[in-house]
């Protein structure tokens, strides 16, 4: 008997599960467990989705401050380039499992080429015409490589917020 098998004191009624447990023991696997209730996990995401009603696009990491935002033509601080208008309103489907997904479309009409693509997004409390508070953000997919001036950058049910262990 191997050391891993010796550690398996419990005898499983279902032999298949027993074999899975042996494999897990060999790998020193540990079950992921956040020790948090669904209610708390839901509340964490709701902090963003109930007040984070506006989507931004970023040329680099927004970090914890909303940095590297691509500024729209009607936003405060605009000088040139960017996109037409301001941050776009976003709505959300009901929380499901451990994630929540947007359920509408946001379109950003670029006024300048984004040579390095749009690698990040952000969520804000306001559209940016007179400020707003940055809530959080993340990475994008499908928007790498140069995106030309005049392109419409589109997110359709595209934003997913998930709780990770």
């Amino acid at each position, binding site marked *: 008997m191997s050391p891993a098998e010796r550690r398996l004191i419990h005898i499983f009624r279902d032999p298949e599960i027993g074999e899975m447990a042996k494999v897990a023991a060999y790998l020193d696997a540990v079950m992921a467990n956040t020790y948090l209730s669904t209610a708390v996990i839901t509340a964490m995401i709701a902090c963003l989705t109930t007040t984070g009603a506006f989507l931004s696009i970023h040329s680099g990491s927004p970090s914890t401050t909303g940095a590297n935002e691509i500024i729209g033509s009607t936003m405060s601080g605009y000088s040139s380039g960017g996109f037409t208008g301001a941050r776009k309103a976003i709505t959300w489907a009901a929380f499901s499992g451990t994630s929540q997904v947007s359920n509408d479309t946001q379109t950003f009409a670029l006024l300048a080429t984004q040579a390095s693509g749009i690698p990040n997004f952000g969520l804000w409390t306001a559209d940016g015409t007179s400020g707003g508070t940055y809530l959080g953000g*993340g990475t994008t997919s499908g928007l790498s490589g140069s995106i*030309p001036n005049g392109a419409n950058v589109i997110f359709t049910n*595209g934003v997913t917020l*998930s709780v990770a262990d």
Partner: protein
Amino acid sequence: MGLQASVVGVAVGTWVLPECEHVWSETAEVCEKCGVTRLELVTGDV
């Protein structure tokens, strides 16, 4: 303490170029808005 979790966000996007209403240069060979040439339009090589 065992409490640990973080919120991870991902945005899936795409981009498209609206169809250009070409404005031809004086030589009528190059669109002044998008840069496509008449030859490219004819051959479909755009």
